């Protein structure tokens, strides 16, 4: 099972890019499944359902959305396995610029909107700097020169990443992204750790836990299906 974690600021075009990428993946014989995580509300599941792929929604509500994503990575992969998928696309709520919900054995994709201006890559933080692939969207709205300046800024903060120029309306970039997903590594939840340190605060992640397996998590925790429990002393 390959795990693709898609992050990026709200409105950057994560869902639109994913919809085209799913079609490209399916045409190439893959079986993608999708978990869409949001904070309070989403109807993106309806858009994904039209593509006839297994889809689940997780709402983090009062839990940190990145911690919610990380805490539920293990059951997400299990669910995708049961659905017979070979790729799990996890679209995160994509809000927090402090941490990034990318585990090591996944393909970390950061979607970023070119129209936010070439200074944005300098502000985004680990969401961008620890990504494997940076997808630049809405490039059709600006000039080639502005796209090139934006790309230069992305490479300044993340010199190792692959930059893909995509268009959520036309589907440009989707095939390139599908190819990169196919080349990606297999997810291994057992030894999975996060790429970046979460902030120090009061939850298990906030206190420095980086292991993904469920048994390591304590505090007030929300399951994918909404069930909440307290684990700890």
């Amino acid at each position, binding site marked *: 099972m390959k795990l693709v974690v898609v992050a990026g600021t709200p409105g950057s075009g994560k869902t639109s890019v994913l919809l085209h990428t799913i079609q490209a993946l399916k045409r190439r014989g893959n079986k993608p499944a999708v978990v869409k995580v949001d904070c309070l509300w989403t109807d993106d599941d309806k858009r994904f359902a039209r593509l006839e792929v297994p889809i689940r929604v997780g709402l983090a509500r009062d839990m940190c959305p990145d911690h919610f994503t990380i805490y539920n990575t293990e059951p997400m992969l299990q669910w995708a396995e049961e659905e017979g998928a070979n790729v799990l696309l996890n679209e995160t709520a994509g809000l927090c610029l402090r941490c990034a919900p990318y585990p090591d054995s996944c393909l970390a994709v950061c979607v970023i909107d070119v129209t*936010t201006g*070439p200074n944005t890559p300098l502000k985004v933080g680990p969401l961008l700097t620890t990504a494997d692939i940076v997808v630049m969207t809405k490039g059709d709205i600006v*000039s*080639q*020169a502005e796209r090139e*300046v934006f*790309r230069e800024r992305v490479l300044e903060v993340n010199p190792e990443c692959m930059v893909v120029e995509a268009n959520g309306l036309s589907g440009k970039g989707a*095939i390139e992204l599908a*190819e990169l997903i196919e080349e990606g590594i297999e997810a291994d939840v057992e030894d999975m750790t996060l790429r970046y340190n979460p902030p120090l605060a009061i939850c298990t992640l906030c206190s420095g836990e980086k292991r993904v397996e469920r048994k390591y998590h304590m505090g007030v925790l929300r399951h994918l299906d909404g069930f909440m429990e307290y684990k700890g002393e």
Partner: protein
Amino acid sequence: MSNPIKLTIIGGINKDGTKEAIDRVEVSPGDILGIVGPTGSGKSTLIDDIEQLAQGDTPTGRRILINDEEPDTKMRVDPRLKLIAQLSQNMHFLADMTVSEFLQMHARSRGKDPELMHKVIELANTLTGEPIHEDDPLTVLSGGQSRSLMTADIAVISDSPIVLIDEIENAGIKKQEALELLAGEGKIVVVVTHDPVLALMASRRIVIKNGGMNDIITTSTEEKNVGDRVSEVDNWMMDLREIIRRGEVVEGVV
């Protein structure tokens, strides 16, 4: 300017998924190739395929060859190796920078001398009425100023052997001069246009229909003559426009 190159477009499929009528188009240095067709027919998609150096990996399945060969992947993504400069339909600047900061950064992204920005601004000011200044914030430039600046940027900084132009006629700049400037010596120019002046400046034009390359028309001598006459009318219109702009009257000039 890099070495002259040959551009080949290998046909793919149209919007219905059937094979395009035109299977192969070859363009040599110095050629101006037009792309015509109704709105929404897929003209910009063909430009995008060329810009991306598509290798059957875009929705049209087209392939783009350079000197009869599949180009290296690096050429597709690295602006320093890019063979293609593009003047797109959308020409708003959104970057929160001054004209000089932006041009210097663009020059660096293309591996060029940042000092070229002076030359870009100077050239842009020959194409537009209102002068552009180095310290102007990009976002306050008018449509005409932005287009002029980008045209000059393509001529100086993105100096590439292939230039793609999408509907320059709506730009509010001196379009013939801009096209001649971009065409330069020995460049391949591909221009999407509805404008008879520009369409007839091209030696051939691809007709797009339903997402596919449906036909290719070679501009005949008779068409060239029509083109010359249309140019005269167009220049006359431009002169009148200038007179109106200066706040003068057009009585007696007809």
